[in-house]
C-alpha cells in the first residue's frame, strides 16, 4: 500500500470545503483592473502591522529619543538617536527629541515590544501589513516615513496599500489593552491625545474575548463606509471599491 494511505487522507478531505480564507486585496481581473472583490480580509483588533510615530495634538512629536524601543527590540531592527531640542523651536516637549528613528522591516517581527516599551506612546503599530519593497533601502523606514504628517495621518508610501479608515487603527493596540492587564483600567483613557484624532476613545472591554473580536471587527468595517474622518482627504485610499 504505502503511498496510497497518504492519498486516502487527501481524498477524504476533498469535499470538506476550504478552511483557510482567500486574501483578496489587490486582486485584478483579466483586464488588469482591480476587481470588485478587492477587499482586505478583516483583521483582529490587535493585529500588528507597520509602525507609525505619533504627534501630540499641538503637532509636537511624541518621540523623545529614549531608545527604549531599540533596547527592547528582540530583532534589533530599531535604531534611534536622541538629540537636544532647540529651546526656541522644540521638536518634542522637554529636552530631548528623536533625532534619528529607523526601523528595518526586513528584520522587524512585529512583536510590538517597542510599543509596550514606549513611555510616550510615540511608536504604535497600525494593522497594515500590505506593503512590500523592491530593494533594501525602501525596507528601512526612517523618521520621514514613520512620522505622521501635519494632518496626523500616516504617510502613504507607494508600495503600501492603505484603505480608507485604516488610519483609525494606527494606535489600536494601545487602546485595546489595559495596562498590566488589570480590568479596573478597562474603558478608561490612559493615553495622550494625538494630532488629528484627539484623545481616542478606549475600545470596548475584554470580558468575553471571543465575542469582542468579531464585534469589534464588524463595527470597524461598518464604520469605514459611513465615517468620514474629519476634513481629511484620503487620496491614496481611493483605489478601493469600498465607498
Amino acid at each position, binding site marked *: 500500500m504505502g503511498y496510497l494511505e497518504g492519498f486516502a487522507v487527501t481524498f477524504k478531505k476533498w469535499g470538506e470545503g476550504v478552511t483557510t480564507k482567500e486574501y483578496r486585496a489587490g486582486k485584478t481581473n483579466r483586464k488588469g483592473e482591480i476587481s470588485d472583490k478587492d477587499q482586505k480580509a478583516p483583521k483582529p483588533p490587535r493585529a500588528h502591522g507597520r509602525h507609525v510615530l505619533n504627534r501630540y495634538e499641538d503637532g509636537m512629536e511624541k518621540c*523623545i*529619543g*529614549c*531608545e*527604549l524601543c531599540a*533596547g527592547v527590540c528582540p530583532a534589533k531592527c530599531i535604531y534611534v538617536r*536622541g538629540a537636544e531640542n532647540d529651546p526656541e523651536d522644540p521638536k518634542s516637549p*522637554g*529636552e530631548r527629541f528623536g533625532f534619528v528613528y529607523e526601523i528595518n522591516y526586513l528584520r522587524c517581527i512585529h512583536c510590538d515590544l517597542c510599543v509596550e516599551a514606549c*513611555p510616550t506612546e510615540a511608536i504604535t503599530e497600525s494593522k497594515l501589513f500590505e506593503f512590500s519593497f523592491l530593494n533594501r533601502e525602501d525596507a528601512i523606514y526612517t523618521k520621514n516615513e514613520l512620522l505622521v504628517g501635519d494632518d496626523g495621518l500616516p504617510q502613504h508610501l507607494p508600495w503600501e496599500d492603505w484603505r480608507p479608515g485604516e488610519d483609525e487603527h494606527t494606535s489600536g493596540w494601545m487602546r485595546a489593552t489595559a495596562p498590566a492587564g488589570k480590568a479596573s483600567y478597562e474603558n478608561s483613557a490612559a493615553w495622550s491625545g494625538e494630532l488629528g484624532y484627539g484623545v481616542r476613545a478606549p475600545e470596548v472591554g475584554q470580558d468575553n474575548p471571543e465575542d469582542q473580536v468579531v464585534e469589534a471587527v464588524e463595527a470597524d468595517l461598518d464604520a469605514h463606509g459611513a465615517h468620514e474622518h474629519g476634513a481629511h482627504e484620503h487620496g491614496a485610499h481611493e483605489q478601493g471599491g469600498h465607498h
Partner: protein
Amino acid sequence: MTATEPTEATTGIPFTLNGKAMEAKPGEMLIDACERNGEHIPRFCYHPRMKPVGMCRMCLVEVDTGRGPGLQPSCMLTVSPDMVVNTESESTKQAQDGILELTLINHPLDCPVCDKGGECPLQDNAYSYGPGESRFVEEKRHYEKPIPISDLVYLDRERCILCDRCTRFADEVAGDPLIHFMDRGAQTQVNTFPDHPFSSYFSGNTVQICPVGALTAQPYRFKARPWDLAEIESTSTVDSTGARIVLQSSGDRLVRVLGVDSEAVNWSWLSDKDRFGYEANDSENRLTDAMIDNGEGLEPARWTDAARKVATALAAGPDRTGVIGGARLPLEGQYAWAKLLRQHAQIQNIDAQLGDGLPAQVMAGLPKATIAEATAAGGVVVLLGVDAKEELPSLFLRLRHAAVEDGASLIELTPRTTGLAPHAAVSAHPVPGTVGTVVAALADGNLDQAVGGVEPATLSAMADLLGSDRPVTIVVGRGNLAESADFTVDALAAFARLVPSARYLSGLRRGNVHGALAMGLSPGAVDGLDTEGILRGAATGKIDTIVLLGADPLADFPDRALAERALERVDNIIAVDTFLTESGENADVVLPAAGFGEVDGSFVNLEGRLSPLQAKVTPPGQARADWMIAAEVAAATGSDLGFISLEELRADLSASVSDFASVDWDGLATSDDGPVVVTTGDAPDFGDPVVAPSSDGYGLRLVVDRKLWDLGTMVQQSPSLANLPAEATLALSPSDFSGLGITDGTDVTVETRAGSFTVPARADAGVPKGAAHIPFRLPGFDAGSLIDAGVAISEIRVTVG
C-alpha cells in the same frame, strides 16, 4: 574563620550579619563590612573615597549593640564587637520603602530623557528596595531644567536628591568648593555662587558620582543610552600619571570615559582632560591617508609609496637624521620605532622630549618612588618645579589628599605659586636660575642669608622638614620652559647630598614619555643630539632629515623661532601623527597613525608602572598602529623588525629589555593597578653646577609654564574643551607691577632679543620679585616667541606703552 588564617582571626572584629557570624576590619564602616561579606546595602550619598555624611538615609539597617535593635545609617557606623546587624528585618525594609518614597516625592519621572536612565542608582534602588507605588499626588517642585554650572556640566535641580556627593567632592577632594547647598528645607538646592561657575579641572567627576541624573556632562549629553554602550578598560594617555579609565563606545565612536578606582593611581578620579579629551578622536581633522608632498603640497598617496619615501629619507645617514617625539605612542610602538631607528638605521639623535623635559639619564638614575609611597601618611614631599594641578591633575589629587588628610608636608619649590600652594607647609619661589643654589645652600647649611629671593626663615623651615627623619619624596618636573633644565639638575644634585635617602617621582608630564625613555627614545649616550641639538643642526644644515613621531616642535618646543628656522631649512620632514599639526604641514611624507582607544598596547606611567591601552573603536581611514608603521618602513628599507604581531613584538621586547623580561602581558588588562616594571638605572651624572648669568638689574627673568587648558592639539580638537583656555596675560610680582604704575589688564610692551611684543599684564602675588610669568601656548599671545633656547635664562624688559 579557619585556623589557617590566624592573623585575620585575631585582628578581625566579630559581628553578626543576618544571623551569621562575620568579621570586620578594625575601623571599617558597617556598610563596607557588609558589602565585603556579600550583603549589599543600598546607598546614595556614601562613596568609599569620600567622608561619610549620612545625608540620604538609604543605608539604614537594624543594628543592635546591646541596647536593643534600632535603625542606624550603616555608612556612619564603624563596626563594634558583637554588633548584631539585620539588613533584612521588617523595620529595615519599612525604612527603605519610606526613604525611597520620600526621595521620590520631588524626583521627576523623566527617566526616558535622562542620561542616567538605565544606570541610575535611584532607579535601581527604587526597583530593588522601593515600595513600588507612591502615595504622593501633590505637584513636585520645579526649577528651570538643566542650567549650565560650568562649560562642561549641566545641573538639573529637579532631579537632585541632595546626597551631597558632588558638593563634598568639590570641597574635600578637588579643593574647588564652588558648588554648595543653598536655601533651606524643602527648597534646598545645589547651586553655584552667583557669577562663579563651577570651573574646576575635576568637574566631570561630579557627573560620574551623581547617583541620579542631576549632573550631566555636556559632551555626553544625549549621545547614547547606557544599553548602547560597549566598554573596555584602558589607561588615560593625556598625561603621564596614567589614570585608569573605562572607554565606552556606541556605534564605533567613543562617547564617554569613566574613571576606574585604581588603588595605586587615580582612586577613580579623573581630570576633565582625561575625561573629555576623547572627543578629539572624532575630529574631522584626523589624518586618514598617507600623504606625500609632490611639490604642490601634501596629497593622499599609497602606503607603500609613502613607506618607500620614508625609507629613502632615513638613508640620509644616521648623523644627518634626527628623530623628535614618541611620547604619544603606546609602548609597543615605541619599541618598534626604537628598534628601527637605533638597530636598523643606527640613529643616535633621538629625543622623545621636546626641550621641555629633563635629561633622560638623570631621570633614569633617580631612586624611584611610587605615588603611594610619595603620598604616604607623614611623609615630606618636595614639589621641585612641578605644578601638579596644571600638568598632572590626577597626581595633584593624590598629593592634595596626602597633605590635607594624611599629614604629609609639602614643600613647594617652584618658579611661582602652584595649585598645591594652599596646602604647602613651606612655599619657596626662587627667581629663575637660582633653584640649584637654593638647594645647595640648604645642603651646605647656609641658612643665614637670602638666596634667589628666598628668605632665611623659609630656608630654615625647609631645612627643618628635610632634616627630620620623615621619609622624603621629591616630585621633579620642568617648572620653567624659559630656564635651562640644568638648574633643576643642579637642584637634584644638591638634594642627593642633602637627603641621600630621598626618593623621586618623575614629573615629566607628556603622555607615555616614561615608556619612550624606557624603550630608548632618548639621545644616544655617544654624541646623540637632543631636540634642541637636532633643531639647531637642522637650522645650520647639519641635519637633512627630521622624523616627527607624534611631535609638533613648532608648537611644543619652547623656542619657536629656532623650530621655525629648523623646519624651514631641513630637506626631509617625515611626520607620523594622528593629526596634521603645524609642523606636519611642512612635511614631505605624512603617515596616519591610529590613536588613543584605537589600538592595543601598553603605557608606562611616571612611577614606571605598566598598564594596558586597549582598542575600543576602529582607526579612521588608513591609519594604523605605530608599530605596524615602523614594521612597514623597515620592510621598505629591505630589513625586518622580526615581528608581525603584537604578541611577537611583546616577546621580542621582553627578551631585549630586561625591565620587561617577566611581564605578564595578557594579565595586564585584568589588574586595576598594574606592576611597576621600570627600575632605577645607573646613578645619574649631574654634571658640574651651572652658573646663572648675572642680571643687568633692568630685565625680568621669564617664567613660562603650562596650563591644563591650552592650545594643544587634543584640547583644540575636542569641541567641548576648545574654548576653555584663558587668554594669556603677563603676571608680575606686585612690587614690580606697582613700579609700572598701571592697572590689571593694561597692555605692556615686552622687549626681548627677538623683538618687542604687546601683551596685557597683571599683578600676581605668586610670582617672585624679579620674575615675569606667562603660560605657554595660550590664546592671545605665544609665549614661545619670548624664549631663547640658546641662553640659560630668557630675560624680558617690560615697559608701559
